């Protein structure tokens, strides 16, 4: 676009055509906003024509996960209960992309309130993996991952509470970043679990991901948990891995249910990094198993409270047939929330109840501290920890919907990063059984630059980069 070989409007129309052609099968989008997109693209056209684009994201088409509020655009968190809700405000990440000139394509599908690992818990419809349509795209940010994997968007925005960016990135063969907790403002992110949620990008290259992070990261006076740290995403991108120490944890490489194809690709990736000059060191993450249990206490507990506001009175869907206020609440919530959301509200309510709080919530918080300590100790002897992102490649649609515990295990390698608030990235490291395998790079808090550097070095050393899934 800078070279005037194409224009933002041309790029947008190409993407809208691709969506038209492919999304009938993939179903990554819940709704499109072509009028808004065309207006934004036209403004970007003018800036490029004047030789004054706003920056690297000016005119770039973005797919937005349906949990990020976009001013005036229906935003439903993938839930029927928010049908018809048009927020009168932008999420801060959205506002920053808007200010950078990005073009919004529409809202992408996700598990309802980001609760799930396959996008099958959407209140609307499942999304299909562009690599094989009978497979899930992962979740909860499956729509954004699939949109980028299918070439329907250049950038996808997702949110990651226990792996909801990294796992679908892995399953769809794209790059996905979960920034440090506090790195990207959560203002305008419809909360699932407030102490774990982070917003991050999907892209088809590590460099693109760094560019997006550079724009959306930073302190926000409207989010008291956002940090005020230097934003240095591109600083060390090309510095290579010579002399870096890469931690390998047995608890991760030998995790229960890891597929041989996945393990094979990850082992190859580690050898490539070693060949590129990195030193592989063993580290221990002894509380990994407990972390999963703690996560499924803390996240539902926070969710049970965060979702209390959806009562059918103030916004979104409401059951009009109810005769009393209590009935309105009960019916709206029963009809508006899907099964997984109701399950987590009940789990969380139980875990916080008087008499159970100490045994569940408090204990889970203690485990969380232990998990964070595991990572802190591990990072004393390494710069990053590299593992598979997901123990499996994309599984068949419907394979795990009847077994919540099997679904919860999808996050076993990712949710530790959320419990400890770390920076993490998933990037493609080859294929197994014709499906993408994801490599996870975890770095200490605020060290996104280190995770991106290792990921970029791997891209260079392996020659593997994210590809658009063939139609």
């Amino acid at each position: 676009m800078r070279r005037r070989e194409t224009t933002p409007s041309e790029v947008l129309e190409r993407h809208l055509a691709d969506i038209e052609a492919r999304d009938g099968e993939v179903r990554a989008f819940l709704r499109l906003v072509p009028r808004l997109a065309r207006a934004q693209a036209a403004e970007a056209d003018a800036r490029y024509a004047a030789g004054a684009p706003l920056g690297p994201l000016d005119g770039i088409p973005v797919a937005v996960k349906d949990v990020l509020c976009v001013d005036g655009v229906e935003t439903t968190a993938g839930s029927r209960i928010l049908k018809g809700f048009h927020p009168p405000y932008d999420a801060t990440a959205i506002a920053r992309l808007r200010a950078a000139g990005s073009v919004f394509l529409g809202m992408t599908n996700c598990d309802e309130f980001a609760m799930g690992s396959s996008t099958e818990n959407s209140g609307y419809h499942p999304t299909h993996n562009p690599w094989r349509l009978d497979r899930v795209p992962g979740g909860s940010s499956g729509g954004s991952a699939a949109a980028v994997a299918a070439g329907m968007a250049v950038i996808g925005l997702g949110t990651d509470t226990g792996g909801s960016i990294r796992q679908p990135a892995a399953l769809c063969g794209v790059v996905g970043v979960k920034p440090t907790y506090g790195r990207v403002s959560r203002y305008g992110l419809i909360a699932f679990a407030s102490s774990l949620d982070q917003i991050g990008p999907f892209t088809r290259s590590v460099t693109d991901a760094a560019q997006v992070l550079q724009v959306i990261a930073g302190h926000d006076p409207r989010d008291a948990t956002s940090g005020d740290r230097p934003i240095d995403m591109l600083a060390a991108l090309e510095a290579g891995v010579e002399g870096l120490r890469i931690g390998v944890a047995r608890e991760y490489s030998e995790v229960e249910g890891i597929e041989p194809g996945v393990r094979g690709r990850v082992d190859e990736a580690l050898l490539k990094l070693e060949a590129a000059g990195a030193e592989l060191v063993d580290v221990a993450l002894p509380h990994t198993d407990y972390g999963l249990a703690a996560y499924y206490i803390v996240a539902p507990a926070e969710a049970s409270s965060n979702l209390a506001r959806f009562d059918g009175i103030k916004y979104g869907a409401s059951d009009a047939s109810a005769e009393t206020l209590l009935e309105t609440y009960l019916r709206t919530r029963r009809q508006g929330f899907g099964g997984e959301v109701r399950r987590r509200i009940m789990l969380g309510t139980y875990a916080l109840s008087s008499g159970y709080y100490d045994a569940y919530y408090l204990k889970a918080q203690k485990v969380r501290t232990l998990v964070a300590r595991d990572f802190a100790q591990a990072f004393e002897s390494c710069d990053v920890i590299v593992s598979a992102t997901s123990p499996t490649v994309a599984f068949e649609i419907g394979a795990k919907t009847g077994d919540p515990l099997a679904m919860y295990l999808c996050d076993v390698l990712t949710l530790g990063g959320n419990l400890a608030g770390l920076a993490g990235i998933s990037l493609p490291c080859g294929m197994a059984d014709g499906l993408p395998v994801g490599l996870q790079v975890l770095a200490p808090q605020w060290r996104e630059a280190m995770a991106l550097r290792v990921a970029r070095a791997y891209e260079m050393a392996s020659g593997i980069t994210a590809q658009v899934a063939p139609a």
Partner: protein
Amino acid sequence: MIAHNWEAVIGMEVHVQLNTASKMFCSCSTDYLGAPPNSNVCPVCLGMPGVLPVANRLAVEKVLKTALALNCEIPEKSKFDRKNYFYPDLPKGYQISQYDLPLSRSGWIDIGGRRVRITRAHLEEDTGSLKHAGDALHAAQESLVDLNRSGMPLMEIVSEPDLHSAEEARDYAIALRQLLRYVGASEADMERGQLRVEPNISVRPRGAEELGVKTELKNLNSFRALHRGVEFEIRRQVELLTSGGKVLQETRGWSEPEQRTFSQRSKEFAQDYRYFPEPDLPPISIDPGWIDRLRGELPELPGPRRLRLMEAHGLSEQDARELTAERATADYFEAVVAAGAEAKPAANWVIQESPAATPEQLASVIRLVAGGTINRDQGREVLAEAARTGSQPEAIVRERGLAQLSDESELGAIADRVLAENPKAVADYRAGKREAIGPLVGKVIAATERRANAQVARRLLEERLNPLPDGEG
């Protein structure tokens, strides 16, 4: 009256709206009274999806200052928690409050010689309010939600059950109000809902150790209602128990028209609020430097100030109490003294006149009256005009020719005329009714358009009524 063999035990829960400019967790104004319903709101205090609270630092400081004034312990770390419950005036489905790490604990306040222990003072957000169409909630056809008040900064001050009468309960609330106004935390106007006092009341046989079943009293919109409500509730409980009945643990409301309490809600089954740490707000670290700064910003509190005024200026306890009732009054009094006025007349003027003039203007007036230039009535007028126009009292006296008339020949002539016109009073006086001179002095003053020096007028009248004996006769 409570029967002598029963003892009332009262603990107080007080909610105070803080007088910050903006709400607790958003930038909406706190000036919501009188605003059209749901106009003083934003996505944050409406509890819309995705928005986040950001704590108002000034509100935190106002709680800390109040806590210091209440002799509380301040922890190094405090945090907010979520109190979860469904109610239509609570848009998020939870209230951000403080549970196990409040901003302060374990303080005390002295009420007329009795020490009342303070359990804690913490910070939370106010709810919205409901308007019920119809007379009462149970008969309402519809209820409307107004969220203008939602998210107002609210401090809760909890006392130990150290109070034992309706008078003490009222005095406690009055003392708290005074303290809050001194500290600058709140205007604490009960009728405007800025100070909401909820006594927990139980009774027990005098000498008993065990506490009785308590009721919580709400809707007390004035100190008078507080006094009456507690008094009623103590009597009701004693009558119930002495007639073989039982007190139920419940929340009771005060009905102003009926002057009685009524049952609102049973508290036998405690609600489970599922408190947990508010993940949207980082914990608050309170370092000693911050506390030192806040302590330094505290004004001299009413108790110590009263004693100092008594000692430094020889004021009576009553005068000192009235002058220190409001911080502004005491400040004004001290400014008048600093501007050169004598303390005792200054106290009288401040207490009796509540002047609108500047302290310097009042000090001038006090000097003019003490020096005999004008009398007290004139002083009052001059003071009012000085306040209205901003002019100096000396200049007003000069321009209006108000200087007191002390000229003996002029006043003597007027005295002669007054005596001639009032033979009855003269006769009364001479018959021994000495007080008959009062009205005569008044008539002389009136005849001078109130300019006469009252002392001079009296002396001249006395000289004429009691002529010296004729030395040659």
